[in-house]
């Protein structure tokens, strides 16, 4: 959640409103207004987004700027261009994970969770190789499961199904019922925003049917190295897109 201030440096309309709110004009106009519309926020916080343009009142209300507002308001729903970048990175990450974990890519999947409506949910469209419909409605609370724990702690987390059930995973039963019965393991990789100094999403890489040998022993160096490789190898690739979505900007593009 954020507040966005887009102001015009030469906005005389808000200046006039301020003037009309002062005595003796306020006696006539009954206005109680100021010129905050052209002022910067008095506090500097990651969730207070300040932007300005050199121009007048009408320029901040130019229809050409509406798209950016709609992108900002929709977040964490991602516009098509940002979503396409994210899913492309997910496809690549799935292939890379297959190599690192020694697993076939067909059995590996990926998705992006972000806070929505008070819980972590899969960002619509931000999945790769996921075909089990009930999972798209998963709702995970903070500190619940690997995803919720990764979001809260900022650390990569992993959960492996060694027995017949997901006991110990801390997800409530009605959420566990939505999980693909073939799911065997999940690696949850938190995405941190440097600008906001916070975890803004969790990319999950998970696998069906089989537990890769490298994930068998949680105390082994290979196990730790594999998770660290996946986490550090993806950090820089998702953060810019989530940050662009958060600010309502277009995604970074390749430039000649």
């Amino acid at each position: 959640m954020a507040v966005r201030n887009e102001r015009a440096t030469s906005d005389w309309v808000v200046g006039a409103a301020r003037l009309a709110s002062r005595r003796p004009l306020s006696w006539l106009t009954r206005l109680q207004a100021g010129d905050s519309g052209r002022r910067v926020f008095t506090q500097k916080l990651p969730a207070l987004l300040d932007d300005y343009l050199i121009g007048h009142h009408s320029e901040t209300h130019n229809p050409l700027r509406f798209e950016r507002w709609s992108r900002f308001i929709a977040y964490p729903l991602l516009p098509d261009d940002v979503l396409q970048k994210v899913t492309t990175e997910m496809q690549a990450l799935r292939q890379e994970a297959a190599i690192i974990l020694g697993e076939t890519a067909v059995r590996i999947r990926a998705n992006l969770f972000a806070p929505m409506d008070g819980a972590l949910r899969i960002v619509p469209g931000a999945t790769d190789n996921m075909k089990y419909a009930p999972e798209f409605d998963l709702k995970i609370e903070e500190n619940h499961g690997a995803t919720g724990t990764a979001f809260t702690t900022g650390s990569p987390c992993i959960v492996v199904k060694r027995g017949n059930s997901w006991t110990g995973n801390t997800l409530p039963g009605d959420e566990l019922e939505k999980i693909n019965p073939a799911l065997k393991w999940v690696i949850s990789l938190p995405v941190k925003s440097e600008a906001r100094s916070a975890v803004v999403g969790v990319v999950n890489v998970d696998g069906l049917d089989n537990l890769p040998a490298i994930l068998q022993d949680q105390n082994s160096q290979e196990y730790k190295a594999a998770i660290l490789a996946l986490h550090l190898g993806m950090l820089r690739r998702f953060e810019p897109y989530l940050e662009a979505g958060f600010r309502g900007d277009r995604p970074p593009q390749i430039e000649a």
Partner: protein
Amino acid sequence: MNIQTVPISPQADEAIRPDAEVVRLKISGPVDPNNAVMRRARELVLGTGSRAMIESFDWAVQRGNFVTEE
């Protein structure tokens, strides 16, 4: 630099160990690229042949923003 796995689910009694426990990879202390786990992680990344992954790995090591506890 310390890289350790920390089970989140209670494991007081091995006999009642849950089927699926959450494990956290906890990283603390100053970043050390020569740490054995770090070196092996970079080898694994290099093995993918992905330039984007290698660049992300080196960027993250330089920033140190993956360390959760100093």
